[in-house]
C-alpha cells in the first residue's frame, strides 16, 4: 500500500470539497493511504507576486512538514503541485537551501531534500496504472464524450516534473479518461489556460479565456469537461453563471473533476461519495448517460 501526505491547498477544502471527497474515495478504493498533516498551509504560489523569497519559504515549510513524517506529497491542486515542485528545483541549489533552512530552523523545521511531490492524477497513472483502472471499471461510461483540461501547473514548467509530460502534447489525462470507458475528445483549445491566477486582479481576462474554451467545446457534442484542478473548476464552472449575467450568454455546461469521473466508473455513490450535489452547474445530463 502506498502512503502519501495529502496536500489540500487553500481552495479545494473550502470551496470545492467535492474534489477532496472524491479523491479520498478513489484513493481508498485503490489502497492509497492518505495522511492529513494539520500544519500544512498555503503553498505560497501567489505570494511570489510580492516576494519570491516568501513564496519559496512557504513552499519549503510545507515540504519540510511532509519530510518530517517521512512522506511524499500527493496534491489535488495543479498550482500547488507546480509551486511545490518548482521549490524543490530551486532548493537543489545549496546556498538557497542553506538560506531557507536558516529561516525554517526558527520554527523548528528543516528541509533536507528527500520529499517528492506528485499530483493525484500522476499517482493514479504511475502507481495504479491505466490497465489496472480499466480492470476495475464497473459501470458503462462509453456513452460519455469528455473534453480533457489538464491545468497549466500540472504540466509546466516541464523541468520541475522530470519530463513526466510533454506540455504541448500531454497524454496522461486523455488515457486516464479513456481508462474509465468514457471517450476523450480532442478539441482545439484543450491546452488553453483557465486564467485562475489572474482572477483576483482581473475577472474580465478570465471571462474572455473561459468563453473561448466553452465556445470551442459547444457544438462538438461533448457531455462534460473533466479537469484536475479546483481553480480551473471554479473558473469553468462557477464563472459560467457570472458570464451569463454579464454578457447575456446561456452557458450551462457540466464540469467535473477526474476523481469524480473515475468514482462513477467504479460505482461510487454520486452524492455521498463524489459530492455531485455541490456542483453549481448540474451534472444530471452526465449521470443519465451512465448505465
Amino acid at each position, binding site marked *: 500500500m502506498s502512503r502519501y501526505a495529502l496536500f*489540500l*491547498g*487553500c*481552495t479545494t*477544502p*473550502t*470551496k470545492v*470539497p467535492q474534489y*477532496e*471527497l472524491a479523491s*479520498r474515495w478513489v484513493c481508498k478504493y485503490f489502497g492509497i493511504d492518505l495522511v*492529513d498533516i*494539520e*500544519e500544512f*498551509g*498555503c503553498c505560497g*504560489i*501567489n*505570494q*511570489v*507576486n*510580492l*516576494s*519570491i*523569497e*516568501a513564496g519559496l*519559504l*512557504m513552499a519549503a*515549510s510545507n515540504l519540510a512538514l511532509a519530510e518530517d513524517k517521512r512522506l511524499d506529497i500527493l496534491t489535488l491542486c495543479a*498550482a500547488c503541485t*507546480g509551486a511545490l515542485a518548482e521549490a524543490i528545483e530551486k532548493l537543489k541549489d545549496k546556498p538557497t537551501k542553506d538560506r531557507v533552512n536558516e*529561516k*525554517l530552523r*526558527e*520554527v*523548528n*523545521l528543516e528541509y533536507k531534500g528527500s520529499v517528492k511531490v506528485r499530483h493525484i492524477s500522476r499517482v493514479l497513472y504511475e502507481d495504479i496504472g491505466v490497465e489496472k483502472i480499466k480492470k476495475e471499471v464497473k459501470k458503462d461510461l462509453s456513452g460519455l464524450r469528455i473534453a480533457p483540461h489538464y491545468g*497549466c*501547473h500540472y504540466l*509546466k*514548467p*516541464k523541468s520541475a516534473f522530470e519530463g513526466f509530460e510533454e*506540455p*504541448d502534447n500531454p497524454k496522461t489525462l486523455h488515457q486516464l479518461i479513456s481508462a474509465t470507458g468514457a471517450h476523450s475528445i480532442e478539441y482545439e483549445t484543450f491546452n*488553453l*489556460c483557465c*486564467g*485562475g*491566477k*489572474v482572477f*483576483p*486582479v*482581473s475577472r*474580465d*481576462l478570465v471571462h*474572455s*479565456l473561459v468563453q*473561448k474554451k466553452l465556445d470551442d467545446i459547444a457544438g462538438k457534442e461533448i457531455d462534460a469537461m473533466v479537469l484536475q484542478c479546483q481553480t480551473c473548476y471554479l473558473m469553468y464552472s462557477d464563472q459560467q453563471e457570472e458570464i451569463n449575467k454579464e454578457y447575456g450568454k446561456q452557458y450551462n455546461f457540466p464540469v467535473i473533476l477526474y476523481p469524480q469521473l473515475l468514482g462513477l466508473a467504479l460505482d461510487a455513490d454520486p452524492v455521498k461519495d463524489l*459530492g455531485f450535489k*455541490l456542483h453549481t452547474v448540474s451534472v444530471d445530463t452526465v449521470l443519465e448517460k451512465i448505465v
Partner: protein
Amino acid sequence: MNKVKKILEIKQSVSSSELGPDFKSEVLTHPDARGLNVCFSCGTCSAGCPIHEVFPEYNPKKLAKMVRLGMKKQVLRSPYIWYCATCHNCEQRCPQNVKFFNILNVLKNMAAKEGYAPAAWVDQTRQVIKTGIVFPTEKSWIKKREELSLPSLKEEHPKLKRIIESTCIDKIKPRADSV
C-alpha cells in the same frame, strides 16, 4: 476593461531622460532574472501567451524590451505586469530558454516594494498570515465539511505566520489606484 486601459495606458513616446540605465542591471542582480540578456525579442513568448491573445496590451516581449531599455518607471507602475496568468507557456517555448515568468516575478517584487502592488495580492498575503490559507474562515464551509465527514481544518498557522512575517511582505502597501 476599457476603463483600466484608459487610466493606466503605457505612454507610447518616452523621453530619453526618463530612461534609467541601471534598471536592467538592478533586475539582473536577482538570480531569477538571469536570461534577460540573451533575449533577442523573437516574440515567441507573446505569440504563445493566452492573455496577450485576449488583451494585446499585455505583451511579454514588449515588457522585456522595456526593461532592457531602462524604462523603470513605466514598467514598475504598469498594471499589465500583474496580468500574467502564470501558464508558463512563455518559458516553455522560449528558444533562448529565458524564464520570462521568473523575470516578471522579479519585476512584480520590485513594483510591490515601491507601492504598486494590487490590493488583491496584498490582502491575500495578510489573509494567509491570519488563517494559513488565502481565505478567511467561513461557517458555511466548516458546516459543509462536517456534513461530508471531512476532517476539520486548523484555523491558525503560527509557523507559517512567522515565516511570512520574517520576509516583511506583510508591510507592503497596495497601490493607490488598485484595480
